[in-house]
């Protein structure tokens, strides 16, 4: 009945539709222009983002529920196995940590001698990933803490094995982060073995990174570990980023063709750590000194 009335109404033309569309297109273009140029619209984005937050929680709920169910249903046997495995792992890590403590102390001593700051221990905070968007054009993820918890733009994200990415938009309750495999992402790194500095660029594939600026005669080998150099200013130094997967030297080109595999498992992480390093937010201040 209602549908019938609607359709009989619409037989006439809908007034000023073209004008409305033109107006809206104009507004959209203005919005995009200002959004692309600089971040004028961040507050608007944040408030709309907060409105969508309950939806995100709802979408995430089945996954959470499933994991909870999985955890509580796993058999006693499995749990015992897991427990013994964890115990062994803990022992190993503890042993390594003893050495680490000694090394840290030594490092601090040496640094004190060199009159440099110590940046060995960073503060971290664990965040849970709510949503991963890994289409070929942007590799990004949304985490469940925002500027309310002190997250800031450009903050580094790591998992247990290495660097995951960095925060690009810190919302109020959630934040958006870019993965290191995003085509727009570049990260200054150095080779752990010899300190050679270069840049790692994302390729849009989740398991492959590129090193476009390695000269042909550089000392780089398959299996080399790349760690953050800290020279970009945003990332603290010394976190593993990737392992060199292939080196192809092309005689007529100035640069070798080098690819690397991310150290972090970008496709399967569920929790990430945000680094609140002592150095990062006040870099300007330390430059002034």
């Amino acid at each position, binding site marked *: 009945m209602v*549908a019938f009335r*609607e359709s009989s109404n619409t037989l006439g033309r*809908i007034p000023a539709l073209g004008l409305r569309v033109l107006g809206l297109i104009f507004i959209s273009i203005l919005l995009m222009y200002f959004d692309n140029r600089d971040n004028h619209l961040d507050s608007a984005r944040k408030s709309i983002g907060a409105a969508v937050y309950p*939806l995100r929680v709802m979408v995430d709920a089945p996954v959470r529920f499933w994991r909870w169910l999985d955890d509580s249903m796993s058999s006693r046997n499995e749990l015992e196995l897991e427990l013994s495995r964890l115990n062994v792992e803990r022992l190993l890590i503890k042993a390594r940590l003893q050495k680490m403590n000694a090394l840290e102390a030594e490092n601090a001593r040496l640094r004190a001698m060199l009159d440099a700051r110590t940046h060995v221990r960073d503060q971290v905070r664990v965040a849970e990933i709510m949503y991963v968007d890994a289409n070929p054009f942007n590799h990004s993820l949304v985490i469940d803490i925002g500027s309310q918890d002190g997250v800031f733009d450009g903050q580094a994200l790591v998992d247990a094995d290495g660097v995951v990415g960095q925060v690009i938009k810190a919302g109020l309750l959630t934040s958006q982060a870019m993965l290191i495999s995003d*085509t727009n992402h570049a990260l200054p790194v150095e080779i752990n073995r010899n300190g050679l500095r270069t840049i790692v660029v994302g390729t849009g594939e989740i398991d492959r990174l590129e090193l476009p600026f390695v000269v042909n005669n550089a000392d780089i080998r398959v299996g080399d570990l790349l760690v953050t150099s800290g020279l970009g200013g945003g990332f603290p130094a010394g976190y593993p980023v990737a392992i060199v997967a292939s080196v192809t030297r092309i005689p007529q080109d100035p640069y070798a063709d080098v690819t690397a595999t991310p150290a972090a498992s970008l496709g399967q992480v569920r929790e990430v750590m945000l680094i609140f390093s002592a150095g990062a937010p006040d870099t300007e201040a330390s430059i002034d000194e």
Partner: protein
Amino acid sequence: MNRDRTSQRKPVILSLIFGLMLTIMPLPGAAESFRPDWLALLVIFWTMQLPRTWSVGTAWIIGIVLDVSQGTLLGQHALTLCVVAFVTVRFHLLMRVFPLPQMTATVLPLLALYQFLLFWINGVAGIDAASVTYWGPVISGTLVWPVVMTFLSVMRFRTLG
């Protein structure tokens, strides 16, 4: 009339919330590039059915919400959905009398237009984007259209009846 409007609003808003959930739901790697543009499909459907209540303005607002939740350029999806809604309003009388296969064939160019505009805006804004998988959502969107169409029609008349 006022009461009728309200009763029309419920299924639309419900379906939009559900669509948004499907859009931000995480999918395993390969399926990600074949995720249909649920909200584009919904906008096409509701604009075609109720062009007076739901047309370019609503499409624009949905687009803004989509932009925020996807982290794209603010206004990108808004503009695109707005244009898609406009084209749909223009052809809604024709589309409504089409049998299902023919209507599905009409949805294909609309979704292609949607993807093309998104792609174009990315290009103009200098956001890196070029791949064949860009057309995945167009294909999957067209394939799910009959299901969406049937489901929404049933839902609509169930709530109205």
